[in-house]
C-alpha cells in the first residue's frame, strides 16, 4: 500500500475541500437563481393578468360562474366554522371576564375579535385550502390534458377566460364570505352567551355593536380584498404554470394551499401594523 507524504496528504485534503466548497457555492447560486426566476415569473404573471383585467371582452358570464362556484364550494364550511368560532370564543372568554365582574363586556370583546381578526383570517385560511387548491388542481389538470392549449388555439385568451375571472371572483367573494362568517360568529356568540346566562337578542346586539367603531370595520374589510386577490392569484399561478406530468397537478394544488395560507398570514401582519399606525 502506497503511503502518502503528510504534506501531500494535507494539500490533497485542502484541494478536495476547496472543490466541495466551489460545488456547494455553485449549487447554492443556482438555487438562488431559480428562486429569483420563480419570483420574477410570478410578478410577470401578475402583471399580465392585471393588464388582461382591464382589456376589452371581459368574460362576464364565466366571472359569475366562478363567483357562484366559490360561494357554493365554501358556504357550508364557512357557516359551520363561523358559528363554532363565535360560540367557542364566548365559552372560553366568559370565565376570565366573570372573575373581573365584566361579563357585560363579553359580546363586545368577542365581536371585536371576530370582526378584526378571527373572521377574516379563519375565512381566508379556509378559502386558501378550499379555493386556492381547487384552482391549482383544476388549472393544473387543464394544463396537463392540453385544454389550455386547445383554448389558445381556438383564439381564446386563456389568461382572460380562466385566470382573470377566477382572481376577480375570489377578490369579490372572499370579503362577502368574511362578512357572512362574522355575522354567523356573532350569532354563535349570542348562543354561547345564553348557555350560562340569559341575554336577550336586543341587549346582546346593543352590547356587541356599542364597542365597534370605524377603525374596527374598514381596515378589516379592506384586508379581505387583498386576501381574496392573493388566494386567486396563487391558485391560478400554480395551476397555470404546472408541469406536464400528472404529478404536477398534485404539486400545484398542494403548493397553492401552502403559499396562499402563508401569504394570508403575512398580509394580516402588515395590515395589523398599518391599522396600528392609523
Amino acid at each position: 500500500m502506497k503511503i502518502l507524504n503528510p504534506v501531500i496528504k494535507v494539500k490533497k485534503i485542502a484541494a478536495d475541500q476547496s472543490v466541495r466548497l466551489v460545488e456547494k457555492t455553485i449549487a447554492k447560486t443556482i438555487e438562488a437563481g431559480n428562486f429569483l426566476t420563480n419570483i420574477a415569473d410570478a410578478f410577470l404573471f401578475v402583471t399580465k393578468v392585471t393588464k388582461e383585467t382591464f382589456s376589452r371582452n371581459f368574460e362576464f358570464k364565466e366571472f359569475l360562474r366562478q363567483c357562484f362556484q366559490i360561494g357554493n364550494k365554501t358556504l357550508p364550511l364557512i357557516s359551520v366554522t363561523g358559528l363554532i368560532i363565535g360560540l367557542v370564543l364566548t365559552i372560553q372568554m366568559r370565565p376570565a371576564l366573570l372573575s373581573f365582574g365584566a361579563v357585560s363586556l363579553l359580546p363586545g370583546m368577542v365581536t371585536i375579535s371576530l370582526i378584526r381578526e378571527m373572521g377574516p383570517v379563519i375565512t381566508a385560511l379556509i378559502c386558501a385550502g378550499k379555493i386556492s387548491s381547487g384552482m391549482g388542481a383544476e388549472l393544473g389538470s387543464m394544463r396537463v390534458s392540453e385544454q389550455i392549449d386547445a383554448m389558445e388555439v381556438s383564439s381564446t385568451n386563456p389568461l382572460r377566460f380562466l385566470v382573470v375571472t377566477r382572481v376577480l371572483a375570489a377578490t369579490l367573494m372572499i370579503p362577502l364570505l368574511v362578512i357572512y362568517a362574522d355575522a354567523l360568529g356573532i350569532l354563535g356568540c349570542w348562543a354561547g352567551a345564553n348557555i350560562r346566562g340569559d341575554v336577550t337578542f336586543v341587549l346582546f346586539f346593543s352590547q356587541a355593536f356599542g364597542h365597534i367603531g370605524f377603525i374596527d370595520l374598514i381596515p378589516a374589510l379592506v384586508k379581505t380584498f387583498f386576501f381574496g386577490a392573493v388566494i386567486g392569484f396563487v391558485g391560478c399561478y400554480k395551476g397555470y404554470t404546472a408541469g406536464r406530468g400528472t404529478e404536477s397537478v398534485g404539486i400545484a394544488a398542494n403548493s397553492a394551499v401552502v403559499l396562499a395560507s402563508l401569504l394570508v398570514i403575512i398580509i394580516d401582519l402588515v395590515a395589523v401594523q398599518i391599522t396600528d399606525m392609523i
Partner: protein
Amino acid sequence: MNAIQTATVVPAGTEIPEQVIEINNLRKGFGTEDVLVDVSLKLFNGENLVVLGKSGSGKSVLIKCIVRLLEPDDGTIKVLGEDLSTLNQKGLGELRKKIGFLFQSGALYDSMTVRQNLEFPLRRIKKNLSQKEINEKVEEVLENVGLSDALNKMPSQLSGGMRKRISLARTLVVDPKIMLYDEPTTGLDPVTSDEISTLINDVQKKYKTSSIIITHDIECARTTANRIIMLLDGEVYKEGGLDEFEQSADRSIKSFFK
C-alpha cells in the same frame, strides 16, 4: 385503394400547387437538447400530409410550432402566406381561427357538456351567429362525426374514440382551412382507429381542408396519406408517396412498414 390514397406528391387537379404551410430550417430545442434540428417541409392545398416518426422524434413539437404554442429557436414558418414570427397576438389570433388542431388527448373541456364544448369556439370566432344558426352548426358537425346523440353528455361519459370524434367536431365547427392532427389514433382499438382514419379522409373531402397528420400508426398513415414525411433525429429523413415508403429497402423505414 381509394382515390385519396393513390394521389401523388402534388394533389391531382392542382396545376400550380398553393403552399398552405411552408417550413424552412426549423430548429427547436428544450434545455441543451435539440428536438428538431433542421426541418423543412411544405403542405399543399387540399392534401393530407402524414408526418411519421418514432416517439420523441419531435412530431408533436413540429405542429405545436405551426400554431405557435411553442416558439421555434430558429427557422421560418409561413402559414397561408403569413410569416408567424412577424405576427402580433391579434394577427396570430386571426390566423389561428383558420386552423383546426386535434390534440392527442382530445382536450375537451371537462367542465362543459358536448354542446358547450362545440359552442365555445363558435361563439368566439363567429360572433355574429344567432342561437339558431349556432344550434344548426353544432348539430351538423355532430352528425358529420356520427355522434348526434351525444349533445348533452359530459366528456367523462364518453369513450376514447367518442372523445376524439367530438374533439374533431369542435375543430370543424368553425370551418378551418387547415387541420393539424396530433396522433389521432393513439390509445384507440384497431376498429375505432380505422373509423377515425376514415373520418379524416371524409373531413378532407367534405370541408376541403389541407391537413398534417402526426402519427406512428402505420395503418392510419396508409388510409389517410397523400404524401408522407418521415422524421428521424430531428430532421426530415425521407419524403414521398405511400408506394415509395412501402417499397423502400431502408431499414429505418422498413421497421415502420412491416
